[in-house]
């Protein structure tokens, strides 16, 4: 049965309203402080370390992102857990709070489809994430410029920019997941806990669990199959995908993210960086994987929301 009218009707209105809600919310204050503090901490640690190591690295600027100095993790590692946390914080009560405030049926009785409400909330969340992450990214680059005194090259900036886009996509996965649970669970607290639990499981426990599962599944003696299986399993987690993408983008010498066979090393100049395009190709499946994951999760939330009863 076809329905008449555009599903986008009201999308802009919902997106703008959610954006302004986010911007004045206490959550945003917390996010802003997190952004500033993380930038300071990460850059300070990294730059002290980078100064000590060689100044001949052609990608010196990218080292600011990836270098860690004990006890601080690197900026990339910071982002690896900050981005999901921000996304979950923005999305866990997207739909169930409308239920609990009893505004849902009133809003849906206006001439809009449910599509607009859900997509508007997702877009607003993604925009907030993009704004925060871009601010963070600019802060880090600016601080690095001041403290390092070395301007970045064009390719470095291109890599750093793609890295920013990938981080936003990565945050999008968790935002979609959080929104899915905000549809499934009526209580925001439950939704937040389940999302956070799943995040911890996928980013901390799963990478450790994957080799163990692979060992149990693959018959003994097939060393290559074992490694490949473990990697495939680990890649089910968006955290693994993000880590690998960042690896390929910010370490230009990365030639492959899987196991390397001797035949592939024929003629390779070890330690020489790949051109940007090739680095991108190395990480392309991971990038596509993350985008696909957020689309799938959003579709899940969409289907759940369409079938949901509106009444409180």
């Amino acid at each position, binding site marked *: *049965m076809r329905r008449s009218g555009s599903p986008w009707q009201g999308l802009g*209105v919902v997106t703008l309203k959610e954006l302004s809600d986010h911007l*004045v919310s206490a959550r945003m204050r917390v996010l802003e402080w997190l952004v500033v503090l993380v930038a300071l901490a990460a850059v300070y640690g990294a730059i002290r370390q980078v100064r000590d190591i060689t100044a001949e690295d052609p990608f010196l600027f990218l080292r600011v992102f990836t270098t860690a100095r004990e006890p601080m993790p690197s900026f990339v590692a910071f982002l690896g857990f900050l981005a999901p946390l921000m996304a979950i914080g923005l999305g866990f009560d997207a739909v169930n709070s409308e239920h609990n405030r009893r505004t849902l049926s009133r*809003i849906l009785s*206006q*001439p*809009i*489809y449910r599509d607009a409400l859900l997509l508007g909330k997702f877009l607003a969340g993604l925009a907030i994430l993009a704004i925060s992450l871009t601010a963070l990214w600019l802060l880090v680059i600016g601080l690095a410029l001041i403290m390092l005194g070395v301007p970045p090259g064009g390719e470095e900036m291109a890599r750093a920019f793609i890295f920013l886009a990938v981080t936003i996509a990565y945050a999008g996965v968790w935002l979609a997941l959080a929104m899915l649970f905000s549809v499934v669970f009526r209580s925001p607290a439950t939704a937040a806990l389940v999302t956070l639990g799943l995040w911890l499981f996928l980013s901390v426990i799963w990478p450790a669990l994957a080799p163990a599962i692979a060992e149990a599944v693959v018959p003994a003696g097939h060393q290559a199959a074992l490694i490949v299986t473990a990697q495939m399993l680990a890649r089910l987690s968006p955290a693994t995908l993000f880590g690998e993408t960042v690896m390929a983008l910010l370490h230009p010498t990365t030639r492959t993210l899987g196991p390397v066979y001797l035949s592939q090393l024929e003629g390779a100049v070890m330690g020489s960086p790949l051109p940007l395009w090739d680095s991108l190709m190395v990480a392309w499946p991971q990038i596509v994987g993350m985008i696909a994951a957020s689309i799938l999760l959003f579709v899940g939330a969409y289907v759940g929301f369409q079938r949901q009863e509106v*009444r409180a």
Partner: protein
Amino acid sequence: MSNAVIEVKDLTKRYGATVAVDGVSFSVGQGEIFGLLGPNGAGKTTTILMLLGLCDVSDGEARVFGHDPMREPLEVKRQVGYLPDSVGFYDNLTASDNLHYTARLMGIGAAERTQRIATSLARVGLEKVANRKVATFSRGMRQRLGLAEIVMKEARVAILDEPTNGLDPQASLELLDLIRSLKASGVSVLLSSHLLDRVQSVCDRIALFNAGKIALIGTVGELGRQVLGVGYAVEVEADGGTDIAKRLAALSGVRGVETPVPGRFRMICDRDLRAEAAAAVVAAGGRLKQLSLDQPSLETIYTRYFQSAQEARHAA
């Protein structure tokens, strides 16, 4: 009814094996206040949600201004204002900001928005608190704000789900006045309630819901005749005169006359016979002291109906 704004035919909603709404048919005319009445869980809200296209229809059909809520929900929702049971607003926004948001969703232009919001808030008496956060609003104020939204929408049909639920008597009287004023401005109203005297005081016609079906439908008087077997009771108080009781009983349309105390007569009749009764008393040489018409209350009808429905079930 040719000028029906809402027409419902054999509307059915099933949740798995349970039937929430079972073959309901009714129609609401232009400018009419139509009440859906029945105990909680009788299917009133489900019926309303189906009319708005917020809930899938399992069987039968509904038409709002000739539009199918399932296929053309936007058309329907453009013309229908809905006040849900215990309506909610965004507590962190002011009353007028809340209305601004819905006005934008309705697609009202920026220039018109401010003016319509001011008028509608004034109409429900909330103009003084327009810039206060809704978090500070009482329940009655929220309900009125919900009505303001319907006024702002310039909806041609207002669907109100339990509008007076949980309000104090004063607030619910004010709300009922607002509902009457909606009708006066030509808006058709469909309201659901389990508060009987409230419904009786505003509704033109009533559908009595029971277990997903419409048990009875009509005006309060018609329902009274169907359930209690009487339409009107005329009470007469008179002094002197001879054989007043007999004369009254002889009038056409009178079913019976009781004399609870001497000088007081209670006639059960098919129609309003006050004028005839007065003439009869005077003709009998009596002095007429009081004459009153007693319509059966909805509460009596309702209680009696469910009593007899229960008795029928026990007998079966």
